[in-house]
Every structure is written in structure tokens, then in C-alpha cells.
């Protein structure tokens, strides 16, 4: 193999591996209801089940996307690193579905964190029914609450 070809191959390998590095290095970012990046879901977070209060969570994380079950559950969202921007643009056009990723925090009657969890799913996307994703995500939240009650 000529040195020129070897240089091209090395350059391609460098580009490919740098892409992998970037993808692996990207955090799975949990975001607030206002779109503010909060923390990487793969890292330890300050939540102390049984101790952290609702006020502390809100002061730290800001407003959630939704408040479910009369304030017993705060719903934030997260963005998976595997969903790069190009795919997020193309996927709804190609498949007609959007992925949703939720970070959920449940509180007991004393206002302390009793449970946290992540939920993801798919929702049909259409121009006329932009609320479909919200409805299906709300159903996923309700299912998560039911699972907690059953435990």
C-alpha cells in the first residue's frame, strides 16, 4: 500500500474514531421544563430517597415539564446521547414517530422523595396532532405511578 493511500486510510480512521469518541463522550442530559440542561443521568445525582424534599428538588432542578398526580410526581425529560441531532430531525419524517425520555420523581405525603425513575417510549408524530406525544407520555407516567403503588 502506498504512503498516500495509507495517509488517507489513517485520516478516515481518525475521523471515524473521533466521531465515536464524541458519541460515547456525550452525556445523557436531563433537562428542566424550560429546556435547561441539568445533569448526566449516568452520573450520581444529589437525590437522597427518603430525605430530599420537593422544595429542594425544585430549587435545584427548576420547573419540571409536568406535574402529575396532584404534585406527587415531577416529570423532567432527558436527551439520550445516541439520538444525535440528524436522527432527531430525520426520524419523525421517516418513521412518523418520536421518542420521548422522561425522568420522574415521586414524593410521599411528607413531601420527601420516595422514588425516582426513567421512562422512555415512542409516540406517533403528525402535523395535525402535535399533542399525541404528550398524551402517550402522560400515559407512561400514569403507568409508572401505578407500578410504584403496586410495589
Amino acid at each position, binding site marked *: 500500500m502506498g504512503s498516500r493511500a495509507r495517509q488517507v486510510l489513517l485520516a478516515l480512521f*481518525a475521523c471515524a*474514531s473521533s466521531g465515536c469518541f464524541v458519541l460515547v463522550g456525550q*452525556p445523557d442530559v436531563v433537562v428542566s421544563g*424550560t429546556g*435547561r440542561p441539568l445533569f448526566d443521568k449516568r452520573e450520581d445525582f444529589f437525590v437522597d430517597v427518603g430525605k430530599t424534599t420537593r422544595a429542594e428538588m*425544585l*430549587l435545584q432542578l*427548576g420547573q419540571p415539564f409536568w406535574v402529575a398526580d396532584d*404534585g406527587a410526581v415531577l416529570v423532567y425529560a432527558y436527551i439520550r446521547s445516541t439520538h444525535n441531532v440528524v436522527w432527531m430531525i430525520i426520524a419523525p419524517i421517516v418513521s412518523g414517530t418520536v421518542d420521548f425520555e422522561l425522568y420522574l420523581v415521586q414524593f410521599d405525603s411528607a*413531601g420527601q422523595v420516595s422514588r425516582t425513575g426513567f421512562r422512555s417510549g415512542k409516540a406517533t408524530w403528525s402535523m395535525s396532532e402535535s399533542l399525541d406525544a404528550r398524551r402517550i407520555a402522560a400515559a407512561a407516567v400514569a403507568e409508572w405511578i401505578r407500578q410504584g403503588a403496586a410495589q
Partner: protein
Amino acid sequence: MLRLAIALRACGALALFLASWGCASVPQATRIEGVEALQLVPALQAGNSREAVVLELGTPARELESGRILCFLLRRDAERGTLVPVPRNVTPFESDQLSWRWVEYDLVTVFDADGLLERFSLVQLW
């Protein structure tokens, strides 16, 4: 020639490291505290009543624990130099057409049992 090749490889490795480092960290929004927060929202003076905060900032975007926690979505008023509430019909929670561009600040206020301001968190989003 050998030195140049080594230098180029070192630069490449450094570039890859910086790229992965930059992407690995979650960007943090600016938290505003102290005097700066009071200049933007005078009602955030410790010990102020819930009524005083609502009178200045209007109806909260969210209300939890029977009004002990109030959340506001705010934007900067260029003329007054203070923060004002974003109209409810353009907030992400109230409208089907999400209008993030209006919301510049996220404020969470916590009151004590007597309805006096205990803690707050004011974050500049953009």
C-alpha cells in the same frame, strides 16, 4: 520530518481529547444570587410575604404544596431593568405552540409556614 509527524500526532490526540472532554460535560446555566437577584426582582428580599412576590410577579406558572412553592417564568424588561412575568398564553406549559424564546429566567420560590419567603432559585436560561 519525524519530529513533525510526532507533533502532528500529538496535536491530533489533544484535539480528540478536547472534543470528547467538551462533549462529556453538561453545560450549567447561570444561577443568580445576592444583590444581583434583588436588582432583577426586588420582591426576592428575604422575609417578604407571598403576597408581595405575587403582586410584583403576577400569577405563578406553577403552584405546589398549597402555595408554599411558587414557580415563575420570567423575561427581562429592557426599560425597567427588572424581570417581568412571561404572559401565560406564550409559556411552554400553557400553550400547544411551545414558545421557549419568551422565557429567559426560571424562578422557584419557597415560603415558610407564615407565608414569608424562605429560599429562592433564580436561573438565567439563555
